[in-house]
């Protein structure tokens, strides 16, 4: 028995935020054209804005990666100078982390959290609008630094001082401002999500009834609120060093370059989990749906997520094993880092036990979710290897690390985002995504991602440092394969755009409950979801959800 549907009057005005630009609104005059999108306070429209923005940035960041891979196709300098190469590696990292992956998850949160908890909208709709529109400002500013005299940021996405302060190009001040704006956007978005989840759940829905996507986002939002101010602090210190004569990170003035790394990674490591916890939530929704079996170990999933979030504050210096930490610190951070394998393992075991004795079908969202489980686990294994501090003296700053974090971010975070998009597209547009094309996208992506990133393990172990524009001859084969894979993977993502565009424009009609095994509240509203849903809170039936 499905939860009660919201009052039917909203149905008459149903429209898809993505599909057409002029949904009538029963309550008041709606601005038309650009102003509608500039002023919208609707969580679905803002969710779509976030997702479209992140897709555009995904391609821009992808083009930067392809410049890097083209230069590394063979030994020697062919296409770009080392100076521009460094700008490309830096911008690729910054754009992918801050403008592609994070906004994509925020977009999914905007769309789905109110629908999954039976809320009519986000708790703070105007703030929601503001959070989004900060992003195009921030990243236009960031991208514009590439055109400034002296070029854009060229010190890596981790921007270690003093390379990013005393020795940085003049545009660094703009980079700092852009990051500040993006940071404010993240903090405001996170506050909004916390307020929504804590205050606006449907009557009868306890915390431990929430779908895991909501749970993981709640924890992620707290991580964001905790660490984005640290990032803001560290870039403000850089700003002072560059422009106001302070010496936070300048040894010549009594400052401490290692302090920068402690602060950066105190932000940076939780940031890594900010990009993966919501992915866990998405996969935890999809696997039970297509295994037609309840998620195994719901409570342990929640506790594991919480444990990972807490541990993420205690492991930051594993990024700094070779900076010369004292032995005691080295041991502490090695042990805490190894410990993360435990809750992460629990999650993987839970997903696989959910599959065990299920009734499994392989629709596109499920394909991406299964690929996530396998490839994220491979990234987890290399992470476990990196945790072994003595071995990290050999792995650190090589392509082995590049392989590791791309395995957890590309077939990890990004595959989970794509799985989520395929899973919820019927709800957003009212149409199923084109099955054959989506499968084609999946198989091309799988081949491309492994061809690109698997050889990097070998290149790194064989001794290739990261962030170099040219390399010794023994690394030539690995790089050749990686570059071919990268272009193949990049081209495959055009299929994704095609599937999404086709799905918005038409396709097989989807019912309210688009997937046979789907259980959460979002499947109780019509497909496509009307602009306003749950104006009257639904009654949450716990029995339906397994108790």
């Amino acid at each position, binding site marked *: 028995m499905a939860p009660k549907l919201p009052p039917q009057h909203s149905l008459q005005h149903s429209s898809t935020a993505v599909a057409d630009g002029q949904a009538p609104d029963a309550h008041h005059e709606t601005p038309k054209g650009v102003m509608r999108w500039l002023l919208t306070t609707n969580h679905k429209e803002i969710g779509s804005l976030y997702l479209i923005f992140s897709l555009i940035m995904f391609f821009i960041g992808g083009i930067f990666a392809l410049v890097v891979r083209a230069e590394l196709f063979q*030994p*020697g*300098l062919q296409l770009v100078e*080392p*100076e521009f190469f*460094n700008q490309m590696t830096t911008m690729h990292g910054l754009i992918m982390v801050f403008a592609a992956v994070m906004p994509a998850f925020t977009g999914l949160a905007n769309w789905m959290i109110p629908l999954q908890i039976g809320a009519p909208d986000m708790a703070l709709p105007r703030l929601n609008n503001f959070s989004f529109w900060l992003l195009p400002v921030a990243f236009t500013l960031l991208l514009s630094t590439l055109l400034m005299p*002296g070029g854009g940021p*060229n010190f890596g996405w981790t921007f*270690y001082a*003093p*390379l990013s302060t*005393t*020795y940085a190009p003049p545009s660094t001040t703009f980079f700092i401002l852009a990051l500040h704006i993006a940071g404010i956007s993240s903090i405001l978005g996170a506050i909004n999500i916390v307020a929504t989840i804590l205050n606006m759940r449907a009557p009868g829905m306890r915390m431990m009834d929430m779908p895991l996507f909501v749970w993981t986002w709640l924890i992620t939002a707290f991580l964001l609120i905790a660490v984005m101010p640290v990032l803001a602090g560290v870039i403000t210190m850089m700003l002072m060093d560059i422009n106001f004569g302070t010496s936070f990170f300048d*040894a010549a003035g009594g400052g401490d*370059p*290692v302090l920068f790394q402690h602060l950066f990674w105190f932000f940076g490591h939780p940031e890594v989990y900010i990009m993966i916890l919501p992915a866990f939530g998405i996969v935890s929704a999809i696997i039970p749906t297509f*295994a037609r079996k*309840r998620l*195994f*170990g*719901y409570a342990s999933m929640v506790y594991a997520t919480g444990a990972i979030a807490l541990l993420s504050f205690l492991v930051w210096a594993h990024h700094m094993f*070779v*900076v*010369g930490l004292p032995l005691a610190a*080295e041991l502490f951070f090695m042990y805490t880092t190894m*410990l993360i*394998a*435990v809750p992460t*393992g*629990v999650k993987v075991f839970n997903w*696989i*036990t959910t*599959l*065990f*004795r*299920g*009734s*499994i*079908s392989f629709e596109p969202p499920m394909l991406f979710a*299964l690929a996530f489980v*396998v490839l994220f686990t491979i990234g987890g*294994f290399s992470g*476990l*290897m990196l945790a*072994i*501090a*003595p*071995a990290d*003296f*050999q792995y*650190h*700053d090589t392509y082995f690390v590049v392989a590791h974090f791309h395995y957890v971010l590309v077939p990890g975070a990004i595959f989970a985002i794509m799985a989520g998009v395929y899973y919820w597209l019927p709800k957003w547009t009212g149409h199923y995504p084109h099955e054959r094309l989506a499968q084609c996208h999946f198989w091309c992506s799988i081949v491309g991602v492994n061809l690109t990133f698997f050889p990097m393990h070998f290149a790194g172990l*064989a001794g290739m*440092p990261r*962030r170099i*524009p040219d390399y*010794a*001859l023994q690394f030539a*084969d690995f790089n050749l*394969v990686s570059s071919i894979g990268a272009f193949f993977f990049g081209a495959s993502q055009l299929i994704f755009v095609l599937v999404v565009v086709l799905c918005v424009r038409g396709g097989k009609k989807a019912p309210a409950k688009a997937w046979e095994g789907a259980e959460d509240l979002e499947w109780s509203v019509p497909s496509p979801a009307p602009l306003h849903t749950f104006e009257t809170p639904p009654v949450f039936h716990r029995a339906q959800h397994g108790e």
Partner: protein
Amino acid sequence: MHSPWRWLLPISFISTAAQAQSSGWNMPVGVTDISRDIYGLHMTIFWICVVIGLIVFGVMFYSLFRYRHSKGAKPATFHEHTTVEVLWTAIPVLILVGMAVPATATLKNMYDTSEAELDVMIIGQQWRWRYEYLGEDVAFNSSMSTPWEQIRGEEARDEHYLLDVDEPLVLPINRKVRFLMTSDDVIHSWWVPDLAVKQDTIPGFINENWVQINEPGIYRGQCAELCGVNHGFMPVVVHAVEEEEFEIWLAERKEAAEQEAMGVDREWELDELMARGEPVYRAICASCHQADGQGAPPAFPALVNNDQLIDDLDWHIDRILNGVSGTAMPAFRNTLNPVEIAAVVTYTRNAWDSDTGDAIQPAAIAEKIVQ
């Protein structure tokens, strides 16, 4: 070179990993006790991951195959099992403890820099290494010697492309050598895989590490921490020799240093300075200002047709002695000797089309350094 198609055979990876020798696919075993320990840890954790992976993915793919909806599989309804959940939390903890014990022992050993027989200071500079044998009065710079023509593809690339230097670090085998590591500008990281030493060199800090090499040989590595535009062109070469050979080498270097020091006082001819200046220019200056002196404006100004440089000798010398703050131009007063500075100033004022005829005397430079 291997055929690229070899990659498509996963079997090849497994067999290569199993042989566990430095195959170009795996971490080198290396030539120190520490590097062997690290290699052992690496392979242990690798095989643990392989076994866990086989079990986990085995169950997963079995389930995917066995419980297909299309084959009419009916879903079970279980969703919790306390015993299983406790087990798969506890077992990984035990495996991790088993792994942490040898890792801790190795790490303690790596941190024991006591009782070294030789101290070498390693200083990172954009973009070369400086080695100082402490207490021996021997110090020199080590820059990449791969010609830019090879990088630009104008010449065939040789075997040690990008991994060759003009002056390698020479170390004796079987002796415990302590490294003291720092930097003059940004953070670099000194790394030689065969020695399993990777340590950041950080301005304002002195890091310690140590090595005791078991076999003579030439061991190559690179800077591992992004340090600016020529980060990729900052190789490390260590030449490990028998102890007697090392003593002879050290004595020769000391004598050469004394000779050079005596050269400061005498009068140098223009041709002599030009001949001495060219290798210095190629090793130190050419990575930014280019071999032809054209630079790469605006970041790296041209030295050819640079009126200020030609007209104002004192300004020119000041730039080299003291660097230019806020740019990539470092101060060379402590890293080049007066002969080298005099020679390279003379070279830049007479090479290419700049025929000023100035022959800068080392004695004059030495005087400015003292000031």
